[in-house]
């Protein structure tokens, strides 16, 4: 009863799990595409303020965007470390990546709190509703990624993440990079092109 009934590597030469995650990310494109489209459709349609011009703090968000982009770099380093069996590097970068993610989330919490103080809420106008729902769902995706990566980090700490496990790190990385790319689109369309 010990042999696997199917190889993990399938007919296309790809691992099942990796292909499954690619399919999932394709689906996520439609999810974020719909949310972004909603934001764009309602841009400038709010009958009353606050408007994006009055509220959005580009310098602040540029910093958090930079942090998130750097977390992608750390993700690359983490995968490389696991692949070459570098336990110390794996522990370091697998913590660094979600840590940078948490800094990004901290910025987002601060941003949301400031906006609410300045009068932008879910209910006040369409800009508030579409902004919070779009960036909120992105933040939720980052949070899931943080938990995922911290789980891998604890495995690494307990020496249970070996070179043979590089694939599960790679899959987490695919998700993490995807969430980053979505943020680049959101940052451009929501913050930079007002």
């Amino acid at each position: 009863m010990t042999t696997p009934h199917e190889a993990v590597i399938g007919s296309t030469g790809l691992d099942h799990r990796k292909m499954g995650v690619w399919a999932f990310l394709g689906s996520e494109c439609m999810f974020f595409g719909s949310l972004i489209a909603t934001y764009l459709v309602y841009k400038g349609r709010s009958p009353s303020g606050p408007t994006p011009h009055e509220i959005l703090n580009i310098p602040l968000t540029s910093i958090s965007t930079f942090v998130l982009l750097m977390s992608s770099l750390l993700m690359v380093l983490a995968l490389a470390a696991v692949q070459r069996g570098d336990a110390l590097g794996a522990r370091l970068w697998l913590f660094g990546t979600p840590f940078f993610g948490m800094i990004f989330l901290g910025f987002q919490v601060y941003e949301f709190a400031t906006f609410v103080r300045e009068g932008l809420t879910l209910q006040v106008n369409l800009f508030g509703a579409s902004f919070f729902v779009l960036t909120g769902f992105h933040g939720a995706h980052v949070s899931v990624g943080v938990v995922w990566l911290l789980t891998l980090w604890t495995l690494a700490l307990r020496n249970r993440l070996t070179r043979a496990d590089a694939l599960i790190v790679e899959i987490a990385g695919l998700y993490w990079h995807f969430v980053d790319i979505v943020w680049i689109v959101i940052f451009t369309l929501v913050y930079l092109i007002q």
Partner: protein
Amino acid sequence: MTRGVWGWITTVDHKRIGILYGVTAFVFLLVGGFEAALIRLQLARPDGAVVSAGTYNELFTMHGTTMVFLAVMPLNAAFFNYIVPLMLGARDVAFPRLNALSYWIFLFGSLFLNASFFVNAAPNAGWFGYANLTAKQFSPGANIDFWVISLQLLGVSSLIAGFNFIVTILNMRAPGMTFMRMPVFVWMTLVTQFLIVLAFPVITVGLILLLFDRFFGTNFYNPGAGGNPLLWQHLFWLFGHPEVYILILPAMGIVSEVLPTFARKPLFGYPVVVYSGMLIGLFGFGVWSHHMFTVGLGAVVDSAFAVGTMLIGIPTGVKIFNWIATLWGGRIRLTTALWFALGFIAMFLMGGLSGIMHAAPPVDMQQQDSYFVVAHLHYVLVGGSLFGIFAGLYYWWPKMTGRMLSERAGRWNFWLMFVGFNVTFFPMHFLGLLGMPRRIYTYAGGLGWDLWNLVSTVGVFILALGILVFIGNAVASLRSAAPAPADPWDGRTLEWAVSSPPPEYNFRNIPTVHHRDELWALKAGRAPVEAAPPPPREIHLPPPSFYPIVVAAGVVLAATGALTHLALVVAGALVVVFGAYRWAFEYRSSLGGGLRPPSDASPRGLRGQSPRSSGPR
């Protein structure tokens, strides 16, 4: 195999999950049919008083939602689950536990939706749930909340199954089964899964916005605050039109299997049928606004969507001609499965033709919201999808149960359903052209609608009798019919190469495929009969797991909480997290014990462990 109820609860076997899907969906088909019968009783005579206006709204909403999401989609899923791995020459799907999770979420979501009846708050805004009828202001009760949340659950279930089957089909084909050797049913399943994973996120977003409007006071669909109810229509139909193909493409696949088998000819123009299926799926994403011709999007937009819609008629027509050409010159055996497949072609063709009619905006503007549209969509979904599903039921029943169905009862079943269906729905064309609008709970006499409404109601009972004959046939078959041989129909595809029902592991040795109609080629001596390799000493099967049902229970607990108390949402979320972590580490902790993980849980590369499973094929 674990036996008893616990065995079914923890099963990850694609065949058992397929049966669970089939039985559950058939029950909901009866529920949806019962709702339809009540609707028709109410409309049988002018000034009907069988149900109240409010109940009528609930009935047509629940009928539509049930038939689409709880009956036809999961009936198709039953065949995906049971048949596709067999056709591929695989031992299970790529992610067996995710497969179980899809089913449990589907089951709990369906029960959640129907629980609304017991608290007297069944959804009542139509299966399309148009904004801003669904706004808190106009629908203050929990009716719409039930609808929104259960649709989200069902969407999650479909999405998970979508990822699973995309990977299964692309990655688990037997050696030698190139894409152009895959059975057409597998192809249509693949296209359907792509439609699901790309279309469902869109309605997910539409529903999230509605949820925020209702729960958190946003104004996405509130025109009073600058919102645009048309946004809902766009998001809904950008999902809703591909959904139509999600419902019909599997039936096209089934028919493409049944016709060649009983005409004893290979499918005519196999590549063209496959490419047509892909084109239908592709075009399906570009035609959603034909559901919105009367909202006034402008002549340019309407024209573009009209042209796109008519374009879909081309690959669809190509398929119909290919099916007819498959029959042409064949040595036809008129089994019940073939009767249903023939009924499918004729009825789907009629639904397609009325569809072409209202692809033209000026015509559509006359027919919009009239019974003509009701006739059209039922010709496509009952005459099309459901007849296709029945063809599949009669075709694969012996494989799935190990028993034969009575062909005599099958003939009664087909003709009662065929006649009942046409008596019910054909008069609706007339009613629509005579101006009878949809979704009215009653009408005055003397408008010229009395006769055809009565005829239509009579038809429902003939249709119901047909379904009853099927149930009788099924029960008799399970009780006392002769055991089915492995290959009762002289089949062409790999599922007929194994016993009926197949052993738990499907194939003792994974077959090598040389032909599109592999089994025919083997039987005719056209495929090399290899010296049977020694049977493997042991066949690994994914062990049962109860974490799928735990996660699904957490999900539905959170959903219940959304309608009752926040504490339940938190509790449900905790159960989901707990279940997900136990799931992820289910096999990691047991690695030392000699038990090897199934493919979806393998934390380590397992390549090369088995001589038959190594390397890319």
